[in-house]
């Protein structure tokens, strides 16, 4: 009898042992993402980085000089302290000592300068140009001693620290970049808490613990970032405990997850604002009254309530209330009569079928939307189509695969295949000036694709001028005033039907602590621990 009991105890202990002993260190942290990680180079190379997955991986692999905490405050990372000169043009950074890259290369002033110059030079970095261009031109980056550098910009550049804290500000190993060239994007080397192990494109990225991390030993032996496009599957995986963290949760599933005993839901108001962009090259949209009429035709309240379950906020500026430089600039209340009047003034009269006509042409347009890339994209598009139907505009929906979506936007103006498109921009450095510049600064040429995301081909010299001034202003109050002016002009010019700012909704298992969700949509796992 005793023997039998002893055997039973031993068997039970053997079976349970892995849970008791292994739970601490050897379990990987698994994060299911809506889009796959494809490339992890901070400088955009020919392989595009898929947003936000790519940057979420980069925030684990690399350290930045300066970083955001989850309140979007700027805190030291590889730079321990910094000062800015009186004229606002020269920034001096003291660098952290005793840091090495995953490949053994020491981090020092040379490495920091290599990284900065690589980001600034448009030849080596094609992405995020509005962030890095202000550091270029006559600007310089120089070494003061082995652990001090100075960045001097041509004109004062207010959001410089925001640029350094942006996902593209991750410091890369100069040795690895030189050795791997373009291949670096698929075998990145940084100084961050987790190092690259392997990438199965489209499926998963595996990172391993950087035991030598300067900030202390990271909690997990591995971090797995898995691509799970279907939200229902992500939720099921989380509920069954097969993954620890999931992103992009449909609002209608929040209540269900909140009721789960082992799951936490994290929601944050986000910086990404959404709208339907007009293709301003189309003749019918060149009349501002038409664009304003469309804005009056949308009833945002019910959209936010029914589709987003109130996990979104109607916007009163092109930029989010949480972005740097935000001031409220106006509203377009739901007013169908006003919309009809404005359209009437613009020469559009209802035909016998209720569809508006002008010069014998019916008001028929196409709405482009991706499926499953933006939160509730297809639902919002259908709601919008219905609002347009009410004012006599016949819209057909053209929905495209997420991967193909961007190619519909990044083309020269004569090759745009849509009349309106659902779009959301996230100023991933937290700065409203970056948001406004990316979307509304005139493109330098009409022969190529838009410089950033001005695919409406909006162009207003006054806006360009104010944006230039704002970029060169370090004083926060003055800058806010300038950006507010830009926001007001753009709001009234209405190159978009302004809609809402979303909430980021992320969920995690209760046992995982310190998952940070930034209002810039990124889920940061570098401090996560059991």
């Amino acid at each position, binding site marked *: 009898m005793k023997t039998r009991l002893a055997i039973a105890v031993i068997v039970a202990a053997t079976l349970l042992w892995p849970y008791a002993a292994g739970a601490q260190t050897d379990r990987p942290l698994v994060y299911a993402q809506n889009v796959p990680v494809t490339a992890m180079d901070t400088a955009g190379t020919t392989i595009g980085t898929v947003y936000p997955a790519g940057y979420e991986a980069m925030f684990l692999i690399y350290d930045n000089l300066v970083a955001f905490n989850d309140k979007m405050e700027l805190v030291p990372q590889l730079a321990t302290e910094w000062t800015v000169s009186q004229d606002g043009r020269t920034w001096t950074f003291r660098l952290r000592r005793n840091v090495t890259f995953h490949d053994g290369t020491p981090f020092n002033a040379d490495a920091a300068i290599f990284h900065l110059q690589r980001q600034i030079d448009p030849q080596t970095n094609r992405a995020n140009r509005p962030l890095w261009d202000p550091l270029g031109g006559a600007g310089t980056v120089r070494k003061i001693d082995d652990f001090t550098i100075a960045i001097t910009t041509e004109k004062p550049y207010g959001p410089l620290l925001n640029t350094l804290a942006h996902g593209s500000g991750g410091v890369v190993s100069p040795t690895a970049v030189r050795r791997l060239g373009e291949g670096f994007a698929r075998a990145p080397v940084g100084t961050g808490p987790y190092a690259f192990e392997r990438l199965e494109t489209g499926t998963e990225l595996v990172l391993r613990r950087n035991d030598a991390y300067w900030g202390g030993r990271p909690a997990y032996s591995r971090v797995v970032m898995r691509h799970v496009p279907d939200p*229902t599957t992500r939720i099921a995986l989380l509920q069954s405990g097969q993954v620890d963290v999931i992103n992009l949760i449909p609002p209608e599933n929040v209540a269900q997850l909140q009721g789960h005993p082992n799951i936490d839901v994290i929601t944050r108001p986000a910086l990404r604002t959404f709208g339907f962009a007009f293709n301003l090259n189309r003749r019918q949209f060149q009349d501002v009254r038409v664009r304003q009429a469309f804005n009056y035709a949308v009833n945002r309240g*019910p959209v936010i309530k029914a*589709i987003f379950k109130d996990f979104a906020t109607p916007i009163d500026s092109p930029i989010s209330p949480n972005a740097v430089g935000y001031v409220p600039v106006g509203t377009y209340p739901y007013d169908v009569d006003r919309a009809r009047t404005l359209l009437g003034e613009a020469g559009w009269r209802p035909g016998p079928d209720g569809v508006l006509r002008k010069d014998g042409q019916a008001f028929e347009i196409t709405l482009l939307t991706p499926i499953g890339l933006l939160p509730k994209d297809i639902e919002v*598009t259908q709601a919008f189509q219905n609002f347009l139907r009410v004012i006599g505009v016949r819209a057909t929906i053209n*929905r495209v695969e997420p991967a193909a979506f961007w190619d519909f936007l990044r083309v020269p103006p004569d090759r745009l295949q849509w009349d309106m498109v659902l779009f959301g921009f996230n100023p991933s450095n937290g700065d409203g000036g970056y948001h406004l510049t990316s979307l509304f600064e005139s493109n330098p040429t009409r022969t190529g694709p838009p410089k950033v995301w001005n695919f409406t081909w909006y162009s207003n010299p006054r806006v360009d001028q104010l944006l230039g001034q704002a970029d060169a202003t370090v004083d926060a109050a003055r800058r806010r005033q300038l950006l507010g002016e830009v926001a007001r002009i753009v709001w009234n010019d209405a190159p978009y039907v302004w809609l809402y700012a979303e909430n980021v909704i992320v969920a995690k298992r209760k046992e995982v602590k310190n998952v940070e969700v930034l209002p810039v949509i990124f889920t940061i796992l570098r401090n996560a621990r059991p």
Partner: protein
Amino acid sequence: MRRRLRRLLRVPAMAGGAALVAVYLTAGLLAPWLVPYDPDEQDLMAALQPPSRAHWLGTDDLGRDLASRVIAAARVDLAVVVVGILLAVVIAAPVGLLAGFVGGRTDRVLMTVSDAALTFPSLVLAVVLVSLFGAGLRSVIVAVALTAAPALARLIRSLVLQTAHLEYVDAARALGAGPGRLIARHVVPNIAGRVIVYTTLMGSYAMLTVTALGFLGLGVQPPAAEWGNMLATTRTYLATAPWLLAAPGAAIIGFIFGLNLLGDALRDLFDPKLLWRP
């Protein structure tokens, strides 16, 4: 014939199949008059209501009446299936007749082509075709037709081979009938019944293709109601509003069930082997 039909309809399963298909066809044909609400009319404030008196299948995520959408979708889905299968017959009949009747090299070439098409799983082929032509109603019809046609062509060919050498056909040939007359007067009438049975059974596969394409976002584009895309756009509501998925799901199942019952019945009706059974 009529007696046999009456006898078959007395078998409950077959009568049930026929009745079910009749219900779907009626719903499809009369959809615009049957729907209680405009299927595209949104009322965002009344979104996601469970089944009730006013909305007897509830409302969807945009506040549209689900019953109206399921009925409106019947029209779209059935139209695609019917037109798609008819188009398949139009493509397959000449190929099958030619291959079976002429034989030789013509036969080999045509059948190699149809075999090549058959090597693709039909859904894969459909996805490829729709990607080529772009999503939408027309592409789905073409995809249904082209995925159904190869098998149908093979069937027609084999029926022609069986029929073309029967004695009465030889007799007609000996009397000097040309190939056109032989096909039209002797071959086609003899194989038509079995082709009809087969195309009926094909309808259920076609419906699966249509709704699968809709589910994948390659079919009829929203806001048009279609069972497959209704399932796709509401599947995140499985836990919170299951009626959104139940309604189109049940509609698909019911149609396929009915069509299979009917197809079996028709097979029994036309099958010559069953001709002498009591």
